């Protein structure tokens, strides 16, 4: 049995009060409830405060480059589709630097769980606007306020027919644990966008700001209706719904490779086979 002790990581370097703590704690609770062995999961992360996440728990870890979590995670799954693969990214990381990969991961429906720590600001580089920053938010680079419309990751994901789309909030850990479990248990690509207050650099979207707006989707909500889901995904203002916004069932990307029908790539014979057959084709 996996306990919280088994998931102990190195000492954190996050600011006191950071929303990331709620995400980390929720993840550990979800992992214990699902019985996830550290050696049975891979967390791929990028750069930013979210990128440090895997070091603060215990798991196989590839903490790569800014924005490039999804290509690494996608190929890791193709190499071993029996390994639970989670991508931890920030809003700048995933929606800015890595935006192209985000779209293509949804298209592929690779069975990767993407947890985006969305604090609507750049933390590690000290307070610049992110792709999800509110219109008009003032930063040192945008003294006149941010002039670009914020990217709506969940609406974009529903538009892309992403097979699992959810939104959580670091301040509602009970729900976040359930959303993480649902994402992990979902077959296919799962986006979980998590509001994460940045206590150092985001003076707009604070704990109080989120608390006032976030509400759990009602139990009667049907996440399989794509048009309804799009409508709810667009709800971002005085009221913001959290929960599973959309889900569908479709084949995963791994299933499209004939080679993988025989089992994970890394479990197959490492030595090259049947080369004579390939040579004969050159005649």
């Amino acid at each position, binding site marked *: 049995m996996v306990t919280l002790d088994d998931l102990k990581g190195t000492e954190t370097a996050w600011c006191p009060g950071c929303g990331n703590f709620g995400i980390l704690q929720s993840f550990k609770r979800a992992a214990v409830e699902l019985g996830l062995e550290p050696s049975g999961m891979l967390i791929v992360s990028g750069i930013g405060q979210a990128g*440090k996440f895997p070091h603060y728990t215990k798991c196989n870890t590839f903490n*790569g480059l800014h924005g490039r979590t999804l290509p690494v995670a996608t190929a890791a799954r193709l190499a071993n589709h029996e390994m639970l693969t989670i991508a931890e990214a920030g809003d700048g990381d995933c929606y800015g630097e890595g935006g192209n990969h985000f*779209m293509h991961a949804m298209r592929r429906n690779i069975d990767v769980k993407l947890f985006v720590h969305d604090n609507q600001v750049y933390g590690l580089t000290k307070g610049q606007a992110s792709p999800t920053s509110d219109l008009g938010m003032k930063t040192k680079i945008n003294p006149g306020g941010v002039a670009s419309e914020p990217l709506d990751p969940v609406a974009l994901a529903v538009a892309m027919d992403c097979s699992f789309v959810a939104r959580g909030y670091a301040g509602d850990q009970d729900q976040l644990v359930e959303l993480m479990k649902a994402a992990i248990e979902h077959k296919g690509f799962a986006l979980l966008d998590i509001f994460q207050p940045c206590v150092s650099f985001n003076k707009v979207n604070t704990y109080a700001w989120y608390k006032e707006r976030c509400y759990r989707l009602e139990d009667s909500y049907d996440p399989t209706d794509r048009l309804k889901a799009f409508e709810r995904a667009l709800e971002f203002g005085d009221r913001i719904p959290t929960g599973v916004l959309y889900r569908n069932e479709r084949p995963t990307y791994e299933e499209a490779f004939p*080679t993988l029908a025989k089992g994970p790539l890394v479990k197959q014979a490492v030595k090259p086979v049947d080369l*004579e057959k390939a040579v004969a084709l050159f005649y």
Partner: protein
Amino acid sequence: MDYVIRVCGAAGQGIQTIGATLAKVFSRSGYFIFSYQDYESRVRGGHNFYEIRFSDELVSAPRGGVDLLIALDKETLEVDIEELVEGGTGVYDSKALEKTMDDDRFVDVPMGDIAQEQAGSRLMANTVASGAALGMLGVPSEIMGKVIEATLGTKGGDVVDKNKKAGDAGHSYAKEHCPKCAFTVTPAGKERLLIAGNEAVGFAAMASGVKFYAAYPMTPSTGIITYLAGKAADHGLVVEQAEDEISAINMALGASFMGARSMTGTSGGGFALMVEGLSLAGMTETPVVIALGQRPAPATGLPTRTEQGDLLFSLFAAHGEFPRLLFAPGNPQQIFSCVNRAFDLSEKYQVPAIILTDQLIADAEWSLDGIDLDSFVFNDYRVRGDDFAALKEYRRHAFTDSGVSPLAIPGDAKHVVVTDSDEHNEEGHIIEDAETRMRMVEKRMLKKMPLIRNEMEQPELYGEEKPDTVLCGWGSNWGVLREVTDRLNAGGRKVAMLHFSELYPFPDYEGRPWMEALRAAKKTVCVENNATGRFAYLVRAETGFEFSSKLGKYDGRPFNARDLEKELSDGHVG
């Protein structure tokens, strides 16, 4: 005997089909083949050619001059005609080209009409042209029939039959009407296989145990992913077309981290996008092989043409200091060996390896007696299964005498495998302290580098033992330099070729015969397909040696033996 056929026309006219058919026919007839392609960056139109050189002796470069010109467009009759050697012949269709040649070297073959009559479609004029060329050379039409069956078999019996009919008709027309060919081609021996450079790269990767290949299409390297994608299901590979080159290299690293031998391929522009990922491979010590098919740059350059301009770029690309391997094969055997060694050494030392080709050898074809599968090395350097589980503890970046840490398969044991693009400790966790940083740099770079250097093969010294002149080159110029060396020596000069296919870490040189030959020679020439002599720069940086002259070509076209000999004779050679 040394014969050159050039098939010219617009893109979309089927010159590739003709060229590929002829090359296959000659290699099946037992000849040595070297073919290469010259094409524009467009899908339809333009003026392109496919040149096949065949001989009863090894040929591995463009020769210069054309013996048989097959003209499918008017431009051929104005441009390529200049290349026709004395006694050469041209074939064209006056009706299709709306031009009649008042030149008795040219034979008018109504290819379009024959195709229409025999196969019911003018589109098969290219097959008629192939048949006509073979008829003129006296090659039995049965061989062509077999090649058509082999190459078009999957398209169905009707397509095969019509093409055979068209080919036969071209063949008999030529036999009847074109008595001009100076000689006839008779089968020269055992059937040879025919392999293109990109295919050789893909095959060698398979023979080296590649499991995962991700790439974004880019000329001239697309042929590698095309080849491997066709083999994926039968040979247990995963081949993925990435959304961009940044993704491609990060994918290769992700799969490699999980335990699969991985590779990516691109050209200079795509490699530029991969540079950050290259640095990631260096920091995380993740093995990866990158095929870099060079083409003329900067920027988009001449997308379908050839150049050796990316040597120093590939050597210095990426931020920070870490070891890398650079290979530059110049013929199929070197492609097999370089790709195989790239995989082996990349895994052994956990460093990235780059294979530099260029458009010339990516698209070129050679005939071979066969492929010696035993020559491919396969060592498994990974810690897997029970061996991993038996370890008491595991640290991905453990300090060792060699600097090489155990590379384990995540999931094969209870231990976790951790790596980071940030500087990290032995476990793979992020650190900030100076002491660990220094020890990691020493481990990654300073300890491994001399070990890797010791692995590098010496360059090939060919020709005169005590040369007055040394012609130096690298990569794709192997064939042309070897041939020019032979030609110059046949003319009474004392010349040697010095060719490098393993470029970096630069091979050991002190006291080596080739370094002595360079130092003793009266004249030393570095011949490269670039403007400034990138390899000459590397040699000087590594050894202090300065060539007496440099000969560069930067028009986007490859050297040919005839012109290079002439140019070298003009002052470069002693």
